Each structure stands twice: as structure tokens, then as C-alpha cells.
């Protein structure tokens, strides 16, 4: 009888471990109201700034974020090729933050309502000992208004793969791509909760 009780206690602890992992929501700072009463259908995503040692983090996160934007209901996300071409014409290095003037020109050329620009603050793929996959990532994503070129929303979000663990090892995110996707989805969820409106609505 005691052994059965012990077994159930262990099972309970295993479930409780997963349930206890706290997931802080993204921190959103609103500097100005979102234009067009929140109904944003045309967006340009700039190549993100990578402040980590992980090669290509800015490129792949910006693509995953653009991907998530389309899935979330944005009708038109400007092609990365078009965005890069305009940046090239304005002599802006991909990953570098354009000036307000350049943001306005870029938004006008691409016909978008807002421009999204981000910074990868932290990206780690393995655990401290480097023996198993345990990714963590922190990003800042900004919404820049097309008409003024100024930042209107800024969102900070940090996640670790282990925060998605449900039972024992199950549910844990072990690749940076999957973690990037989850972070992008969570940021977009926050944006839509806080005032962004899906195009089809």
C-alpha cells in the first residue's frame, strides 16, 4: 500500500514540475497608439539586428517572425528581397537600424503601414555544460510607424526551452528555430490582445 502511495506521489510531482514553470508574458511598451485603429494588413519586416555570437540569428529570426505574421493574419508582408533592395538603394546595411527618414521612404516604397524591426539580445542553444540542448532566447521587437518613422510599440520577450516542459521531458522545446517560432507567436498574441486587429476581422 505504501509503495502505491509513493508511486502516485512521484507521478504527482512529475506533473507538478511541469505545471510550476512560470512563463512571463512579453513586456509591451506602448509609446504611441497604433495607426489605422489597429487594422494593419501590410507590413515590412527588416532584417533583425543580431547582438549575439550565434551566426545568422538576426536573419532567421526575422524570417520566422515574418512567417508568423502571415500565419497570424497579416495579408501582405513585403518580400524580403524587396525590402533588402530598398535598403540597398538607401545604403543601409541589413541589420542596421535605418534613420527615421529612411523608414518613411522604405515604408512608402513598399506600401506598408508599419515596419517591424528587432534585436536579438540573447541566444543560447545548449545548457551550461554544453552537453544537451536547452535553448534560451531574448528579443526586442519594435513596431515603427510608416508615416512618422518613429517607434510606437516595443516588446521585450525572453524564453527558455525548458519553460514549455509539461511532464518530465515532454513538451520541452529543444531547437532554437522552434523556440523562435514560439516567441514570435507569443509576441503576436500579445499584440493582437493589446490592440492590433487581424485583417479578416
Amino acid at each position, binding site marked *: 500500500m505504501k509503495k502505491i502511495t509513493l508511486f502516485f506521489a512521484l507521478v504527482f510531482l512529475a506533473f507538478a514540475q511541469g505545471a510550476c514553470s512560470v512563463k512571463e508574458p512579453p513586456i509591451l511598451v506602448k509609446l504611441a497608439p497604433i495607426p489605422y485603429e489597429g487594422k494593419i494588413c501590410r507590413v515590412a519586416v527588416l532584417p533583425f539586428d543580431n547582438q549575439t555570437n550565434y*551566426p*545568422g540569428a538576426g*536573419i*532567421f529570426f526575422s*524570417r*520566422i517572425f*515574418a*512567417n*508568423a505574421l*502571415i*500565419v497570424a493574419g497579416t*495579408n*501582405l*508582408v513585403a*518580400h*524580403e*528581397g*524587396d525590402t*533588402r*533592395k530598398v535598403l540597398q*538603394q538607401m545604403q543601409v546595411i541589413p541589420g542596421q537600424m535605418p534613420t527615421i*527618414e529612411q523608414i*518613411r*521612404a522604405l515604408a*512608402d*516604397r513598399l*506600401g506598408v503601414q508599419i515596419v517591424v524591426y528587432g534585436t536579438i539580445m540573447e541566444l543560447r*542553444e*545548449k545548457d551550461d555544460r*554544453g*552537453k*544537451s*540542448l536547452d535553448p534560451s532566447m531574448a528579443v526586442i521587437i519594435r513596431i515603427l510607424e510608416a508615416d512618422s518613422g518613429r517607434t510606437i510599440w516595443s516588446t521585450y520577450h525572453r524564453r527558455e526551452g525548458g519553460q514549455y516542459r509539461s511532464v518530465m*521531458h*515532454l513538451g*520541452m*522545446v*529543444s*531547437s*532554437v*528555430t*522552434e*523556440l*523562435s*517560432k514560439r516567441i514570435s507567436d507569443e509576441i503576436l498574441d500579445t499584440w493582437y490582445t493589446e490592440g492590433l486587429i487581424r485583417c479578416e476581422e
Partner: protein
Amino acid sequence: MQRQYLLPILLAWVFFHAAPAWSMTMAVFPIEDLSQGQNGVNIEMTEYLSWDMNQKGFDVVAKDEVMSFMARNRVRWLGFLDTRHIILAREELGVDLILFGTMTLRQEKISPSFGLTLYLVRTEDTRTLWTGSGGLSQQDIVNLLGVGEKEEAEGLLPRLAQNVMTSWPVEFETVEKQQHALEIESVDLTPVHVRRGDQVNCNVRLRTRWSDEDMPRVFFKVSGRVYMARQSEDGFGYESDWMVSDRDGRYPVTLVINWPSGYKKVAFLGAYTIDSAPPKLVLELKGVQLEGTVAFRDQVIIIPRMLRREPVARWKLKVEDEAGQEQMSYTGYGQLPKRFVWNGRGKDGWPAAEGIYRVTLQVWDRSDNLAVATQPVAVARTPPAMVLEAKNQGRDMIVDLDHDGKVPIAFWRMEMRSETGELIKVAEGDQLPYRMDVTLPNKVIKVAEQLVPPAAGRNVVRVAEAAPLMMDVALPEDKDTRKVEVTVVMRDILGNFSREKIVDLNGLANQQELDRQPPKESPVWIDEF
């Protein structure tokens, strides 16, 4: 009877469910692999996706054709496309859809893991129809009690692709078509910084050319005024020149296209700034002020200061002598250096002659407005000239030391030695004139620590800076007098240095005494003798 309807129903089911895919041609562009650095390609994933699309019923264009298209149209980058290349793919490859993407992660050292992001684009309107992304690692594939779990990456790529494509759309035709974008290939707005009355040229090249019946009116709009654009011979370029406004400010330029149908498209091209005010500039010279002018011996530091911060296009610093001859010049583009240093040498490298020079800094802003600042500067290299006066007063001798020059003295030192080289007295200081009272017979020296102004009208011995004093002041009656040797070292505040030696101080005193006596009256003839 039932068998009679079975075949048409089956055919209709197949048609409605598979027709979209059957009727569509697709190009699978090489999948970029970020783990292989810039422009790395993942052939394995590309081939798998081509095979999978084929399995889904799409008519997939051969890999060689895609590669040939990329080479022909200079598609230099993988992982993304621009509108022009998407349209070209439709025209040249005849494809309805393009699938491209990026392997965002590929590591096989610890628990192999991969990441993939895919884009599906419709070439007709360049619209992105579908996107998918995801990551998968061996660690994610957990079997009960670890039975059958693999350590290698085998089979992980296809599994990842299938995971990403779980949301693959069954129907593409329902996605709304978007309006064709206005494609601007290049914009050349020059100059972007002008002065009132200058000309501005705007040249735009579009990727679209319209037929004569659909030809729109194209013009540039600046601050409410419109300027009709001239179409180039090839039909893609539009150009116009205009004289800018007579008010300073920033002027945005937009391209306006009006179609006969009434449709209008406006695109922001850029902006130019009218600036007719020259920069405000002052020059500051770091050095010793002498009679209102900065003087130096070795080098002078010139600090330019902009009273109003403004970007600088180019600048020129020059130094001219009093005759207007240029001795030195520096030129540069962009921001001004924080300081300049002139080492007092001319263009030939030799030290410039003593005198007054003019330092002039010319600064042009981005609109070519010129600002000029000028300051005089003096080159002073003459060593300080010593003035020494000795006077016998009984057994004592009074020695007055001074200098003759405009540059203040920074340091002096006087040494008195006997004939045998024995040091009698050392005196030093940083101010002149200076008086010493010396008693010689019993070698006791009194020094009056009192500064006296130079006596006016006195006869003095001037020691020339170039030629050391070479005068024999010993008189016949002084032959037996004990000689005192004096050495004087002086340095002025500019760093000019002099060292003078008087071999016989007594002799000098006697000579000066003789010079001070009034000339003896010469005998005159008396007429009435």
C-alpha cells in the same frame, strides 16, 4: 444502375480534389542553409521538397532549369526573392508557384536538430500564399522508455519538412489576389542639399512600361507644385529638372502617376534640403598672447569651433604670410578635425621666417555655403637678449641683470666663478630685472633680493644673440685685478634659449664706468691769447 453512376462520381471527386494541384506548375528554389554560412545551400532538403511537391501533384520544374534561371537573372541570394524575380520566374519558367525557404538550424553534434522555414509565393500577383516554420531535434522524438530512439539525424529532415507542412493548404485559388505593386527600380534625386535658385534633377526608373492607350501621366510633386516628367526612350525612365524654392527648408519629392481610368498612385521618392545660410565658425589658437596675437616657436594648436552644429562637406586650412604667400595648407572632406597643428614650417619643410602670419579656415556645408574664419599668429624664434650692467662701488660691485625683448622670460640662471673655476655665487629665477650686490676682496658676496626696474638712459652692454661677447675690457691698471667669470642662461616662455658668458666682470664694470664719464673737454684756442 448503381454501377452506372459510380464511375462519373469517382471522376468528379478526383477532379474537384486534385485539379488545383494538377493544373499548377511549381519551381522549388534551392533551400538556403544558414549553418553553412552566407549563401549555403541544402541540396538534400531541396530535393526532398521537389519530390514531395511532385507527390502532391504539382508539376515541378527541373532543378537545372531553376539554376539556369537564377544564373541568367543574377539571383545572387537564397532564402528570399524580390517581386521582379518572382514575375520573371512566371515569364521565363512559366511557373504558377514558387517554393523557397531557409534551413535556419542544422547541427548534428549534440542530439541532431534542424530548423526550417518555407514560403510559397503565387507568381501571378507575387502574393505569399502560405508560410510554415518549425524545428525538430532528436531530443524531441521520445519513445516510451527510450525504446528505438536514435542518436543519428537519419530521417529527421523529411520528418521536419512534414511537420512544417502540416498546415499546407488544400486550395490556393480562394486566396484573394492583390493589386500589382508599383515597382521602382531606382531613384536618383540630385543634389539633395541645395541653395536657393539651384536646379534639382530627379530621375526614376520603373520596372513597368504601359501601352499607349493605358499610358498614365507621370509627374513629380514638391511642396504643392508639380513638374511633368519626361519619359526616356526605352519607356521605363522618367526625369525632370526644376529650380528650387526661395525659402530654406526640407522639401519631400513624390512621384504621382495618374492613369486615364482615374486610378492614381503616389510614391515618396526622397527629399532635398534648401540651405542658404553659411555655417557659423570661429577659430581658436592655443598659445601665448603677445600684444593681442598668439605667438609660438615650435607649434601652434588651431581649434575650429562651429557655433551651430551642422554637417560639413569639405574644408581647407591655410597659413599665409603678410605678403599673401601660402605657407601651408590642409584640405579634407567630411567633418572637421577637432584640432589642427601647424609646426611653423613652410611648404618646403624649412622653418618659416619670424613674423606675423594669417591662419584661415574655409568650411563648405553640404549646400556649398562657404564660411571663413581668420586669426593672426606670430612666429617668434629670437633667443632672449641679455642686458647686464656692472658698477663698482668701493669694495662692492652692483650687478643688474635684465633682458631686452617682448617675450617674457620663463627661467634664468646666473653663475659667478673665480678665475680658478671656484663657484662664487649661483642665482636663478623666473622674473627680470634682478640686482646683485657683490663684495669681492674677502670673497663675501651680498645679494640684494630686490627687483629694480631697468634704469632709463643708462649705458648698457648688450650681448648679441648671434655673436657671443668678445671684448677685451681689461685696462692696463686692472692687470693685477682678480677676474670674475659670469655665465647667464635664459629661456623665454616660448622656449627660445640663450647662453652668454662674460669672461671678466671687473673689466666690464671698469669699461662701463669709463663709458658713463662725460667726455673730457678738448682744448680750445682762445682768440685773444
